[in-house]
């Protein structure tokens, strides 16, 4: 197809379009615009807020599992602030130490702290329990990371940003909060 031909065709299409503009706008009632959903950042109850937060954390954990399996997901998408900086720093440190994790981590519980809920759910904290028993961590040499527990506990801080929760902080917490 030559440039001249394509130009003629493009002009033809444009002419046809413009030709019908007046006719159609005169004869055809304009359809109603699609309604746009309105965002609601707050929740009717703490329970609803924790439920939404758990959903996000579960997706975050799943993203980590998927990333380890085939690299198709990025947990960073669920992080912001301190948690994002910690993730990046932690990944570099693990890489530097030659440590790699294989297998899936399972979220066994997500317990919200009702006293941590701020501004109707814009920020909240929870204790998560993660089951490591289906995963292994090894050094480059093949040696397994020793004394790795089967269950770990973490405190997470989650912040409502642009219509969804993001994990804004990940903190050490008492291991005893998770059984196993």
């Amino acid at each position, binding site marked *: 197809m030559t440039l001249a031909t*394509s130009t003629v065709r*493009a002009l*033809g*299409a*444009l002419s*046809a*379009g413009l030709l*019908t503009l007046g*006719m*159609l706008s005169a004869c*055809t009632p*304009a*359809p109603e*615009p*699609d309604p*746009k959903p309105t965002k609601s950042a707050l929740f009717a109850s703490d329970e609803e807020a924790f439920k939404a937060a758990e959903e996000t954390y579960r997706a975050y954990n799943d993203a*980590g599992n998927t990333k380890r399996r085939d690299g198709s997901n990025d*947990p960073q998408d669920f*992080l*912001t*602030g*301190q*948690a*994002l*900086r*910690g*993730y990046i*720093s*932690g990944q*570099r*440190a*693990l890489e*530097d*130490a*030659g*440590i*790699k*994790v294989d297998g899936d*981590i399972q979220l066994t519980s997500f317990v919200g702290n009702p006293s941590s809920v701020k501004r109707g759910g814009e920020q909240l904290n929870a204790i998560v329990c*993660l089951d*490591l028993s289906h995963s292994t*961590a090894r*050094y*480059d*040499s093949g*040696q397994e*990371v*020793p*004394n*790795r527990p089967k269950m*770990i506990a*973490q*405190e997470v801080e989650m912040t409502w*940003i*642009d219509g969804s929760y993001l994990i*804004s*902080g*990940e*903190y*050490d917490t008492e291991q005893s909060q998770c059984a196993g």
Partner: protein
Amino acid sequence: MRRLVAVVVLALIIVAFPTPAQAVSAPGCPKAVREALGYCPTIDKNDRFVEVSGDKSTSDRSGSSNSSETRGSNSGNAIYTPPPRPRTRDEKFSDCNTLWDLLKRCIPVADRPTDGPAPEDPRATQPITITDLASFSPAPGKLTGEPDNLGVAGLPTNFTADAAAHTRTGALFGYPVTARFTPASFVFRYGDGQTRTTTTAGKTWEALNLPQFTPTDTSHTYAERGTYQASVDTVYTAEIDLGTGYFPISGTLTIPGPPQSIQIYEARTALVAHTCDEDPTAEGCPAS
């Protein structure tokens, strides 16, 4: 320079007179690290574990020689993890070689004895995050459809966003701050349920030196005629200046743009034998 001195003075004041809420600072603990090791060692400013070394040892182990415990097996390449030695106030300060770090995470208030009841929130001293900058209201990007917010069903409609890097001034924790917002990506919402994320704000056909109705990186082809409320979300990265130069803030801030009505028409072609002057009732002519 005057600002620099002011910020240093502020930092020293905070160190000298910590509020009860700042008395304890819980350590961050990245999930990935906890999953790999089962615990959270200190990570130094070079992103290296301070307490863990393996066969590929790169860590700085100075100052940890008095006692150590074996976390690994007794094999020749056992993994040693010295117990974390409580770091002195001076050591904590030395970790931070910039004023920014000083403000963010090196206020060693935990070393000071506290009077009165324990604070409710142990993490009151938090670094500035991207969400803190939302109050600076970075500019929403305006979307424009081409040509003239009109389009033809079945043909590409080109879109551009007018968001650009800009600065905002405001205050954080009572201090004047300049924030610079730079568009990192754009989420074009075409109003028909379709979206496209790009790193470009898009260019007009003329700027791209392309004929009209040519597909572009930001164009969209509507299947049906109608009126669509399209918009663009601008995803900003941010840097802030406390008076000593810009420092990047992790994360992004997504600012939704206002809706723009896009009228999509239907184009039909018809084969006619005469001009409209010759046959005013022919298909597409005013009298038809």
